[in-house]
């Protein structure tokens, strides 16, 4: 259990700058999730924390102690690698036991911990196989097992569940949550999975091209993204962004969206008439309203997932709009659909993408 602090952490590979000054404080026992587009530097940031990569400049503190130049082996962290990095010559059991042996544990203790982790990850039957005789998902579980058998100060996970099937993923996710609850260990977790990010995180860190865009609790990010990037990145399917122009009209503000004007209950401050803004609305906040629809769009594509349906529709002059419906929608390609936006859930971003405060 430990705190972590990064100040001004930068990392370059030769001439390629990958991290541009990361400031981040992770509290003891906190579960922090890094999300961001592929290649934005999540793994690199994790490796910097782990001590596998040295920062080009900046500092890393763990538990108040400066560890910037401490090697990974002395930082007492555990990591699940995106590439798994299993020891190919060791059996699954040996892979998991290796770190414990390093810690000088007794064989009986080691055996017990390994068995427990294996049972949790459903690996018991594979304990004596070598990694090359395992499936992708099995390998990933071994990698996870290797981290959790130890009792590290901080857990670092690099997309640990990406190769697991849905069921196992949910199960393992819940196990991790339980583990976190039980051990209270500080955890730093990279994922692409919205559900994982939203459910596991105490706080989510959104990265973009080596910079932190926003840090906050999952619902903060969902409800109050500080810019269009975060708004688009959090939530799946992603938020719809519609270009709009501010029309100053009577007491309220109206935005021109496509052919229609949308009245805003109370205007965000500091918007001049004629300013170009972006309206953001999540698919789940768009209703199909045959009578009171604000827009009529044509259905391009319907994706029925069973429990819910995504409809992709387009209206003249606007980008494609995604909307979500419960159950198995009866719309089909080419149908006209009248839609309305839940005004309470509208987000407005200025030309630079920054969110404008809603009153």
């Amino acid at each position, binding site marked *: 259990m430990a705190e972590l602090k990064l100040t001004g952490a930068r990392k370059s590979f030769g001439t390629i700058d990958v991290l541009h000054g990361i400031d981040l404080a992770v509290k003891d026992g906190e579960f922090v999730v890094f999300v961001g587009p592929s290649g934005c530097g999540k793994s690199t940031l994790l490796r910097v924390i782990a001590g596998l990569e*040295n920062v080009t400049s900046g500092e890393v503190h763990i538990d108040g102690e400066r560890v910037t130049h401490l*090697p990974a082996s002395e930082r007492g962290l555990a990591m699940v690698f995106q590439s798994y990095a299993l020891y190919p010559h060791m059996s699954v059991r040996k892979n998991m036991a290796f770190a414990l042996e390093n810690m000088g544990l007794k064989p009986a203790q080691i055996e017990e911990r390994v068995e427990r982790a294996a049972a949790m990850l459903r690996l018991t039957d594979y304990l004596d196989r070598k990694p090359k005789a395992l499936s992708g998902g099995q390998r990933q579980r071994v990698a996870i097992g290797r981290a959790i058998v130890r009792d590290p100060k901080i857990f670092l996970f690099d997309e640990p569940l990406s190769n697991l099937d849905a069921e196992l993923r949910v199960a393992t996710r819940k196990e991790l949550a339980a583990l976190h609850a039980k051990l209270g260990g500080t955890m730093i977790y990279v994922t692409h999975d919205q559900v994982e990010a939203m459910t596991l995180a105490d706080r989510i860190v959104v990265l973009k091209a080596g910079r932190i865009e926003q840090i906050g609790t999952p619902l903060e990010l969902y409800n109050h993204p500080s810019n269009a990037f975060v708004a688009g990145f959090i939530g799946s399917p992603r938020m719809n962004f519609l270009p709009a122009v501010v029309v100053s009209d009577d007491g309220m503000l109206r935005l021109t969206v496509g052919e229609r004007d949308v009245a805003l209950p109370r205007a965000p401050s500091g918007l001049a008439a004629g300013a170009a803004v972006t309206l953001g609305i999540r698919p789940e906040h768009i209703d199909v309203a045959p009578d009171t629809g604000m827009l009529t769009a044509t259905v391009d594509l319907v994706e029925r997932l069973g429990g819910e349906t995504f409809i992709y529709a387009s209206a003249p002059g606007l980008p494609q709009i995604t909307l979500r419906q419960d159950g198995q929608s009866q719309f089909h390609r080419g149908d006209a659909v009248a839609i309305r936006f839940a005004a309470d859930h509208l987000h407005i971003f200025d030309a630079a993408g920054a969110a404008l405060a809603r009153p």
Partner: protein
Amino acid sequence: MRLSSMLGQRRNGPGRPLHWTDIAAYVYLALGVVLMFGPVLWLVLSSFKTQSALLEFPPSLLPFAQVEVTVSGQPQKLPLFRAKLPDGTVRELAQVRRIGLIAQMVDPADPSQQFRVAIDKREPVRRVALATENYSEPLQRFAFLRFLYNSVFVTVIATLITLLINSMAAYGLAVYQFPGKQAATLAVIGTLMIPVTIILVPVYLVVTELGLTNSLWAVILPGAATPTGVFLLRQYMLTLPKDLIEAARMDKASEWQIYWRIVMPLTLPALAVLAIFSIMWRWNEFLWPLAVLTKTEVYTLQIALNAFQGELQTQWHYLLAMTVVTLIPVALVFVFLQRFITTGIGSTGMK
């Protein structure tokens, strides 16, 4: 440097204290310089010694030659000594002649002053002097360029053939399952057991029957298929991820293409080792060329330079100088090739 860097990793943070193994490593390297490189350096220095200085006990590190001075009134230059005179003073004197145990000496500054000095009371005055004639004389006498050409031809062609056919065989043995694989592997390993020295005569007979004597091909061909190379490459290829080869098959690559476009580049470190091995071996090869090449125009450098070894005498000064000359090209090649050994591109395209 920390653990990971010791084991080949890419970090090197400033301001870290040295681990004891780092210090041990540097000590080891320093020792290496002395032990491994010292003798080589000494060889180079010795190649600049005169024939006489070369045989001297105890040997000196640097090539020295005795200082000679012109003394007025003497027709020839005289060797200079540091002589201890009976009165205890030490002076630098030139020796006019030596008779038995007594040397007759003069002060070079003042030739009228003569001394008789016991020979164990004087020491030669010496300075560093390079006997460059060790190089220039044989180079003039030798058809050096001819021999160089022969050696280069043999080395380059033989190495190319070796790399090609050995890597092909290694690929065949490493990648495929086929009837007879065990036998083929055994044959390679069995072949490994047989040093050329032992089958020199039979190979000579074969080469003679093929009509290859006194052709450079007689040197190139017999050693082209080295079991060492096949073995080395095969072991290396076994470590390549199987998925890569399968990916190439999916990409419609023919087996030949998989070999030369995928496997060969990935085996580069081992190929570099083999190339170095082959080059060095071909370049230094002596016994076999000596048996099959009898004509000067096809001599390789090694035969030519070993001609300084007679029955009862060896002209070491020439031999050493020529050894140094022949060393330079291989040293350069090594410096160039060793970079490939460390490219380490094994499996970075994998998850």
